């Protein structure tokens, strides 16, 4: 997202992270699931039919993959950012093949020397409905 290094001094309360738009393809989900289970059976994550048999409208993105996508918003923000903690709440299921907007906002800045920053993060669908929300603790170095 941004290859320019950011430093702790560059960031203020209320600064935006992103947004970035991503779409998760069927194949991307299959690839993600097959890392853990190379010979996995069709599931609610990879098969519309299985998903519908479980009461879902369509195949959904696995929770762990959603967390990975949320973390990419932060780790892609700057080359020198470190992600220390990520805590998310799943509010709605995340479908495949639809644009997802990832955004964050800096909500706290620890000036006591830790160089840690807190931020809110959200994943929204095209209608602005928040599918996943959470917060994160990140770290930026001082400007050399």
């Amino acid at each position, binding site marked *: 997202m941004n290859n320019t290094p950011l430093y702790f001094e560059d960031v203020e*309360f*209320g600064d935006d992270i992103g947004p970035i738009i991503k779409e998760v393809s069927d194949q991307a989900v299959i690839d993600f699931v097959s890392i853990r289970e190379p010979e996995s059976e069709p599931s609610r994550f990879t098969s519309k039919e299985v998903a519908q048999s479980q009461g879902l409208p369509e195949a959904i993105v696995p929770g762990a993959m959603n967390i990975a996508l949320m973390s990419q918003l932060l780790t892609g923000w700057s080359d020198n950012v470190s992600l220390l903690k990520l805590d998310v709440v799943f509010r709605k299921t995340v479908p495949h093949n639809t644009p997802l907007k990832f955004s964050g906002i800096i*909500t*706290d800045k620890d000036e006591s020397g830790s160089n840690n920053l807190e931020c*809110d993060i959200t994943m929204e669908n095209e209608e602005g*409905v928040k599918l996943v*929300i959470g*917060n994160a603790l990140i770290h930026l170095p001082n400007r050399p």
Partner: protein
Amino acid sequence: MLLDLHTHSTASDDSRASIEQYIKWIHILRKKGNEIDGFVVTDHRQFDHDVNYESVSKENGITILKGAELDTDTGHFLVYGITEKITSIINFADVTMSAQKLVDVCDTYGAIAFPAHPGRAGIGFAHYLDNGVKGFETVKTAELLNGSNRPGEGEKAEELIQSKGYNATGGSDAHIVSAIGTCMTLFESNITNETELVTALRSGSFEAVRMDKK
């Protein structure tokens, strides 16, 4: 006076925002020129009589009051003016509690209960009325603006409020820090405690507003 009537702290299992973080964020909002005088903590299915925000409110110049958001047999209800008498009668953790009983008990003991996000599918009051639920004659208020509303939910809430002639409140339904104040209620009177909040809510002298973020 501008109060966000619907916020969740980390006491709610689905919230990631602490009271301290909300306070810091409100200071930032004010520095940027936004108006917000305070908020009411309405955690899910609980109320802690021992928590007191009076000193932290004074220190920060932010009115912080307590309420609750309860699951009922007729959707989610916001409750303000909660007393020990009320929590001795109503089990706040009971997700199948009678909303009519909740409203009646609140009416009797100086509190107020009304529907939260009434247009929300599954947990919104309007859908229960559509399905034939009757009663609730003493309910005169409902949440119109909710910061977490999904498409169609605000319209459904507005339809209910107009058809019933309800007074309309606003609240962010914040579960993360930066969401606080996105929707609020503008009161004509100054409010410093939960009793005054109930009086103001029963007076009908307020309106739901959105924060036009600067």
